[in-house]
């Protein structure tokens, strides 16, 4: 029999600390709906989605009520729609009709969002994928529930720069097409490097290669639970070590993850589909008490951006992932901690006050699976997947410190503390010797600050004034 303290802890977590299941996402394989005739394909997709997802909402509601846990969103993730368009290359109307059929199906079964109007173009683009990308402005602006994602890079393949340019133009076009909604259409598109196959969160959800025909994936959150746990820890004794903080976070992450695991197994069992993965993401909302920034403050970082912020981010993320991994049979997706500026009132205030800025957020991101997002005017290098190029090995760096060549030269980088090879090249240049081959020229280029690398804090929208409706983080 459970102890009263255990019962009370769970009741407190559910009743007072905003623990919820952010999303139940049913993955549905649509590849069997491919038809030569567009209207038949569209009808097949609609029928398939309605049939596969007809019980998702009532089952999720009933199980949520049984356990007293709010299931905030019920979603669908379909196999990449570009596959269905391979037989209809260049037919933009077919892509739009497909997207609209998905949207109608969501209305019919009461689904909040659908992800998977997607294309994987990291190594190249097929005709169907190009058709999908071309159709984005019209498809996204004429639908409410459908989200799109484009994978433009992987660690192995690098970044498809041509696709980046193409998608960037389309995002602008989508924003323009939804001007009356303040460009909200662009918020329903996400561009990935290393897109997970089993991510339940929008807008990047899709049923990736290797997934079953149908599968239930769960996304849980709960920054309020972690914050309150740390508050209680410090209330008992204030001089806590980092180990003790990490232990508390791990323990709490375990409990939060177990809730998602339980709900996921129950829903999968009721629907008669396999349970896929559980994604534990500490995702904040602009509400007070549901903030990742408050967790860092509870750890002792008075103002976000102060020395120690990055350590706190790393500690939190590490402990969350360890606690979650032990609690679940299959942790997947993008598990980690979000640090979005516009969705977290504490981080937003820190940016507004000038304590933190986008470059700092990027630095914090180095240990995370999820990066800083929704940073207006944040400049380049926002994506985690954008790797710095390794000058000597001819490939992208992977999680290497940026000063990994420092041991060859003890001088600071600004004083020329680079590799011996580079220093020699620079010396030769000064002596008017022949220039390096073309591929090496850019190494000599002086480091110029990017015109938008230092966003002014005043440009950042305060979350309280501009509550983000972006579906990247489910509310």
């Amino acid at each position, binding site marked *: *029999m*459970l102890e*009263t303290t*255990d*019962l*009370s*802890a*769970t*009741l407190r*977590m*559910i*009743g007072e600390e905003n623990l919820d299941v952010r999303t139940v996402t049913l993955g549905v394989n649509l590849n069997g709906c491919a038809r030569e005739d567009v209207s038949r394909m569209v009808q097949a997709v609609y029928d398939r989605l309605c049939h596969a997802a007809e019980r998702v909402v009532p089952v999720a509601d009933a199980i949520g*009520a*049984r*356990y*007293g*846990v709010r299931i905030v969103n019920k979603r669908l993730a379909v196999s990449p729609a570009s596959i269905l368009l391979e037989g209809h290359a260049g037919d933009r109307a077919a892509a739009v009709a497909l997207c609209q059929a998905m949207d109608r199906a969501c209305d019919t079964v009461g689904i909040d969002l659908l992800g998977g109007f997607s294309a994987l173009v990291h190594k190249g683009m097929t005709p169907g994928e190009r058709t999908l990308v071309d159709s984005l402005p019209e498809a996204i602006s004429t639908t409410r529930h459908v989200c799109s994602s484009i994978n433009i890079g992987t660690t192995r393949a690098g970044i498809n720069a041509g696709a980046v340019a193409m998608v960037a133009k389309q995002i602008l076009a989508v924003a323009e097409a939804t001007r009356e909604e303040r460009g909200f259409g662009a918020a329903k598109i996400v561009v990935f490097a290393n897109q997970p196959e089993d991510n339940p969160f929008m807008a990047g959800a899709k049923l990736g290669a290797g997934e*079953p*025909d*149908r*599968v239930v994936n769960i996304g849980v959150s709960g920054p309020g639970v972690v914050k309150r746990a740390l508050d209680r820890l410090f209330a008992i004794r204030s001089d806590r070590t980092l180990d003790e903080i990490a232990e508390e976070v791990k323990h709490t992450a375990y*409990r939060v993850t*177990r*809730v998602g*695991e*339980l709900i996921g*197994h129950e829903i*999968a*069992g009721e629907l*008669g*589909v*396999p*349970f896929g993965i559980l994604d534990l993401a500490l995702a904040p909302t602009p509400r007070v008490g549901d903030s990742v920034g408050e967790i860092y403050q509870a750890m002792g970082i008075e103002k976000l951006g102060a020395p120690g912020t990055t350590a706190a981010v790393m500690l939190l993320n590490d402990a969350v992932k360890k606690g979650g991994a032990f609690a679940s*049979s299959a942790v997947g997706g993008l598990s980690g901690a979000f640090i979005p500026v516009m969705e977290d009132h504490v981080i937003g205030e820190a940016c507004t006050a000038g304590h933190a800025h986008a470059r700092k957020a990027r630095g914090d991101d180095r240990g995370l699976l999820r990066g800083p997002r929704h940073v207006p005017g944040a400049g380049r290098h926002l994506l985690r997947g954008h790797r710095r190029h390794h000058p000597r090995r001819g490939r992208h760096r992977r999680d290497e410190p940026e000063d990994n060549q420092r041991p060859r030269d003890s001088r600071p980088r600004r004083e020329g503390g680079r590799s011996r090879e580079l220093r020699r090249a620079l010396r030769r240049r000064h002596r008017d010797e022949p220039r390096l081959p073309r591929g090496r020229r850019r190494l000599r280029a002086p480091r110029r600050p990017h015109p938008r690398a230092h966003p002014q804090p005043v440009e950042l929208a305060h979350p309280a004034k501009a509550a983000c409706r972006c579906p990247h983080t489910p509310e």
Partner: protein
Amino acid sequence: VVSSPAMNSKRYLVTTVLADRVGIIRDVSGALFALGANLTDVRQAVIGGMFVLNAIAEFEAPRDAGEIRAKVSEALAGASPAAGISVLPCGPAVAQSGARTVDGDRYVASFSGPDRPGRIHAIAEIFARHGANVEDWRHDLSDPARTLTIGVVTLAAGSDPLALQDELRDAFAPLGLATSLLHENIFRATNEVGPIVQLFGGRSNGVSRNA
């Protein structure tokens, strides 16, 4: 000393109630052992300073309840002369460990708010009306402004937990009580270490990923 029916049985429930002190279990178990009893289940609780001991004593041959009561009373007489002792024969049906009065899922009901007389009766009244069998009951008065009552109940298969949830909320919200009725598994999931499928009796949902 509470009297019990004078009858012979091989299995008895021996209940002892007395002011808490060191050595009560030693005295009671010693008396029963002297009679040749084997204790197959023992539960104890201390409520308001009073020690309550329940023990199932099994004998090889039928024993008289009065004899057992007298022996236990004699063992406790020195240190606890005012002990309450009850010896009740229990049949094999109720004596089986793990047997449940109602078959169904367990739920944990919680009630939090200011204490007032009649609260537990009102809760129990609603439980009984819905056929919910109370298996465990905790009442924590440590914070008078926020008294916590927790009941572990079993709802018969086929009964509607949501209807009970609604009735509890409607009945106690006007009294300032926050109520909840949650499936036991959510508490076990967050407090026990082990695979989640154990909560479903060790079975997975049985759906192959290789359809």
